[in-house]
């Protein structure tokens, strides 16, 4: 623990400074506005947050939101990976996918939300909306990770006549895995954000978005508390996956060299 703190002392100090700055901005905004119905104070918001944490409904809503986010992420990830690899191996696939990805990426997602609800339901619609946002992002991450594989690695695989399966399973996928795992945290965090936004729009009842929608303008401390919770959970997820990617892939860590 001591060694960890010593190694990451600078990062910890920077994190604390950032938190102090954000708290200071919030505090100053409250003092300027002087209206708790417009900007609730830090004390009120945290008070409301602790109240939420004692409510059973909050946990049911949280689970439903996380469930939708996870479904959207997993489907997007599998789809993106399944298409990105053939895109790397076969130029024709890449040529076909580029305009499709461009269309999906530029689609105004909230505008397609209404037709999506008409054909699905309040549970599925936020998942589809999140997928429309996530899929192009994750596809680009896959492609970037594959494109950044060192050309020398590709040459070496060719010289030693590795089979396609060996290249994919033993070389390409393990080389892109740390990068993708590190992105997974931010992708999941983003999925939660998009799902919550969609839940607000479609008024999904048992969900964080639904709770935000219900809090509305009349219960701003609750609105702020829910928003704060969403931010905290996003940060926790991102940090967890970032640390996991460092822990799991020993070969990326530069230990003391021999000689």
């Amino acid at each position: 623990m001591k060694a960890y703190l010593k190694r990451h002392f600078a990062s910890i100090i920077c994190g604390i400074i950032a938190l102090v700055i954000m708290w200071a901005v919030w505090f100053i905004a409250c003092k300027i506005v002087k209206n708790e119905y417009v900007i609730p104070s830090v004390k009120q918001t945290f008070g409301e947050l602790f109240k939420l944490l004692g409510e059973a409904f909050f946990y049911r809503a949280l689970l439903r939101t996380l469930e939708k986010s996870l479904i959207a992420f997993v489907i997007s990830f599998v789809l993106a990976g399944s298409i990105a690899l053939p895109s790397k191996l076969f130029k024709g696939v890449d040529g076909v996918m580029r305009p499709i990805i461009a269309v999906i990426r530029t689609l105004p997602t909230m505008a397609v939300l209404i037709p999506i609800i008409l054909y699905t339901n309040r549970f599925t619609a936020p998942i589809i909306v999140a997928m429309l946002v996530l899929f192009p992002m994750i596809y680009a991450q896959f492609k970037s990770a594959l494109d950044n594989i060192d050309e020398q690695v590709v040459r070496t695989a060719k010289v030693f006549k590795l089979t396609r399966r060996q290249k994919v399973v033993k070389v390409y996928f393990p080389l892109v895995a740390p990068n993708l795992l590190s992105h997974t945290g931010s992708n999941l965090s983003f999925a939660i954000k998009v799902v919550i936004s969609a839940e607000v729009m479609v008024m999904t009842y048992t969900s964080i978005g639904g709770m935000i929608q219900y809090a509305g303008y009349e219960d701003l401390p609750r609105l702020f508390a829910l928003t704060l919770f969403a931010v905290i959970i996003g940060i926790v997820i991102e940090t967890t996956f970032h640390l996991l990617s460092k822990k799991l892939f020993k070969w990326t860590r530069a230990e003391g060299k021999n000689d």
Partner: protein
Amino acid sequence: MIKIENLNKKYGEKKVFENFSLEIEKGKITCILGESGCGKTTLLNVLSRLTDFEGRVDEVNCSLVFQTPNLFPNLTAKQNLLLVSNDLKKIDALSNELSVADKLNSYPKHLSGGEAQRISLIRGIIFDADLLLMDEPFSSLDLGVKFRTITALKKRFKEEKKTVVMVTHDVKEAVEMADRIILLSGGKIVYDNKNLTKKTENELFGLLIGTNN
């Protein structure tokens, strides 16, 4: 013999080889010397089909030791070797000869440049091929390790009657290693010696100074 006939190769407008021909004797170690840009590495790329070319080059199953180790970073040294051959006995023997036996469970990032290059040498040797190509394979080894490595490899290549083409800019390496030394300049053979003597090193230094002027 492995034949190269009327090889033509250019990069953009720059001609590297024009109607170049060479015969490589099987079971012998051929060293190719020359200044930078004379076509040494291009010749290896042509033989290993890593680059396109015009002309006739015998198709041979090649193994290649690159100038840099080019180990797969996500695999340990041993896993890198096992990817190209299952001959554990040969892996153990070579890793002992090249003094890297205790590094086999390390990842490339945790090896020094010299250790990684020796693992790369082992990989090139154990891969089942008719021709071993080596592109300045000893450049990252320090002096003591280099000549111990050359001695060990030369003995092994002789025993196995391995066909080797090695590119180097180091005259001493070439003289230590080779049965035949070829000096390239401007894509042409300016020196070709199959009967190496004690005078060969001086001859080569003289020629290299001449070709660099």
